């Protein structure tokens, strides 16, 4: 392929040739000849012509097949297919030259735009010897949750003067998933008002701090004397203690607003980013407390993860949260109408939204409160994000802030535990604020 430089030189040569004939100027014609010879030499002997190449994934690759496909082969390996935000991913790109001739290659492994190269480089200029291979290693930082792909690998061969080149994209793609990062929570202040009645799918008959008797066991050093069952001691002659059943095991419903408006603000600081991180942290906390957690993400559709417990459930939730894209504008009322028949009365509901552009929010939350659900709303303020990013001026900010405060006050009047979550506030602080601490 001709570069612009060679095209310019070629055009110059033709122009000089014609001008030389018109002006009967031998020097101009001579320059045209020299330029043409220069171009021809670079084209014929620049070694740019061949980029027969193939891309394979490491795990798919079998030596012989790769050999047959072309002379340049690329394979890639990732250190992990799943990681958390701000995590690092090591990428190893293996380039092979099956040709008997050395090649000067420019290789660019395409990484998603939001990623940052932390170590090494994804753009390499190299001389790859005949029948040689090389490993290119680099590390990327993943600051934002989501589904991502690395690839394709773009390879370019050009002559030393950059006159002619040939490019090819080798379709080697590797997918990975970035989960939202989680904050360690000590206490959420969220408990079911109807413990042990609506227990979800979990078998709550587990020992733990509580009031109901669970079983008897032998006394171990460190057990409270108050727990000793003296009657059992009298019967068996061994010190026995009462074990109690866990309290407050319940279903927790987390609703995440992922409408288009949730992404108002800078890419890395907006309501959706904060909401997904909060949802992940809360899910982890409740699941570790053996609660049953369900998540609903709504934007252009309502995506739900049914209530369940355990580590597997956490990964299911994290995957859904990682894939949450700001799209659509489904009103909250539609979501509430859809989920109300399926959630147990009294289950704590945590709603994460910037509360914008939805006229049904008040009525929807009123529906929850009318059925005596314990509703907690954490509302990351898009207003603060935009003001920090200097996208709105002070007057606009004040007006909008007042309106937002009015809405929050209105929701609080319905008995909703609500907190205006400011950008630099920890989730635990916001939660404590929402619950009135």
């Amino acid at each position: 392929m001709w570069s612009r430089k060679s095209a310019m030189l070629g055009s110059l040569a033709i122009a000089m040739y014609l001008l030389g004939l018109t002006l009967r100027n031998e020097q101009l014609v001579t320059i045209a000849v020299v330029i043409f010879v220069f171009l021809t030499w670079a084209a014929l002997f620049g070694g740019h012509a061949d980029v027969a190449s193939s891309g394979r994934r490491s795990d798919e690759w079998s030596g012989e097949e790769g050999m047959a496909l072309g002379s340049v082969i690329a394979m890639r390996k990732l250190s992990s297919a799943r990681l958390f935000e701000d995590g690092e991913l090591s990428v190893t790109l293996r380039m092979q030259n099956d040709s008997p001739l050395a090649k000067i290659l420019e290789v660019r492994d395409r990484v998603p735009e939001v990623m940052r190269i932390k170590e090494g480089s994804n753009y390499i200029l190299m001389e790859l010897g005949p029948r040689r291979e090389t490993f290119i290693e680099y590390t990327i930082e993943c600051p934002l949750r989501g589904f991502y792909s690395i690839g394709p690998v773009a390879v370019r061969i050009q002559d030393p003067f950059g006159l002619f080149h040939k490019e090819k994209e080798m379709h080697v793609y590797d997918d990975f998933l970035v989960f939202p990062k989680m904050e360690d929570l000590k206490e959420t202040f969220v408990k079911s008002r109807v413990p042990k009645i609506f227990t979800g799918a979990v078998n709550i008959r587990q020992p733990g701090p509580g009031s109901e008797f669970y079983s008897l066991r032998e006394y171990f050093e460190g057990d409270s004397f108050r727990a000793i069952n003296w009657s059992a001691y009298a019967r068996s002659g061994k010190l026995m203690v009462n074990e109690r059943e866990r309290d407050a095991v319940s279903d927790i419903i987390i609703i995440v607003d992922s409408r288009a408006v949730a992404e108002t603000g800078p890419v890395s600081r907006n309501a959706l980013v904060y909401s997904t991180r909060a949802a992940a942290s809360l899910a982890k906390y409740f699941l570790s407390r053996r609660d049953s957690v369900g998540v609903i993400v709504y934007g252009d559709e309502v995506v739900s993860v049914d209530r369940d417990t355990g580590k597997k459930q956490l990964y299911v939730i994290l995957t859904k949260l990682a894939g949450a894209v700001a799209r659509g504008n489904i009103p909250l009322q539609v979501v509430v109408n859809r989920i109300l028949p399926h959630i147990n009365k009294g289950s704590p509901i945590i709603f994460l939204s910037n509360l914008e552009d939805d006229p049904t929010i008040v009525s929807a939350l009123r529906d929850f409160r009318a059925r005596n659900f314990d509703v907690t709303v954490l509302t990351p303020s898009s207003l603060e994000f935009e003001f920090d990013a200097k996208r709105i001026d002070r007057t606009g900010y004040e007006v909008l802030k007042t309106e937002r405060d009015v809405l929050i006050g209105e929701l609080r009047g319905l008995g909703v535990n609500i907190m205006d979550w400011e950008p630099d506030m920890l989730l635990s602080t916001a939660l404590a604020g929402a619950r009135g601490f």
Partner: protein
Amino acid sequence: MTMNKPSGDTKILYDGKTVRSSAPSRKKLAGQASLGSEIPKDAIPTVEMPTFIESLLGGPLIPKTKFLPPDRMVQNLQLAVYGVLVALSLLTYMVSPPEGTLWYMITGSLAISFIMQIVIIVIAAGAGFWGTMQRDARYTLLSNLFFILAIMRFAASKVSLASDPFDLQDSPGLLNILVVSYAVLLVMYFELANGVIRYSMLDTSIRTNEVYVMNPKKIVGKYHRSLIINPISAAVLAIIVLSANTLLPLIVGIFSSDTATRLEESVELISVYGVALGTFFVFCVVGGLFALNLPNHLQKFREKRAE
């Protein structure tokens, strides 16, 4: 921080209270209250594209023009450009006498057109020096244009020299070599000046970790080899092409000596049209090679041979 006072009593919800649905659109209000409704700058991802001049000069590896201080390779290239510039300026002055120039046609004065020619050459050399020293492609391009402008003249099919201390005018062969040397120097100047920019970009990208270069010595070595081989081959081939007026009669002479003699004495063949005829053959051959996709076939042949 806004604190919450939770209420367990939900009776208030059913007391015929009218509740406004929600806050008005914040975005809408923001549009009215803020400075304007244009798209915020940071909302548009920045796409760095090479400038027109950069792309003409071969296109940067990384589209940044703020270079770090030059490394040794770039310094050597700069020195080479300075040397070529001096030689090129002298040769340009020699092969472009003021007669036939545009200035001569306009003013009719040899003195004015001589001064104009000198000014143009000085500007071309000055811009070239400055562009190379500052590694600014705009000045380099300006220099290229002025060098081309300097040679634009009506020559009446005759190579005439402004200054001829070695009496080259009497020796057509040496005159040919001089013209070819001039042309090769001009093309090499284009390439070297471009090389300064390209390698500055590459060096800066390497030092800012935007690109990693494996075996840099081999890559640079290949460029150096090309800088020697290409001009030599270009000069040899150009001399052959420009000697069409002697080569053609030689070939024709094998078949008919009379025709060869007539060709040798032909005014057209020893004029610029003879050169053009030779050049036309080159065009045809080059066009044919590209039409047949010869570079690809040649590469395949080389690979097969290497196997």
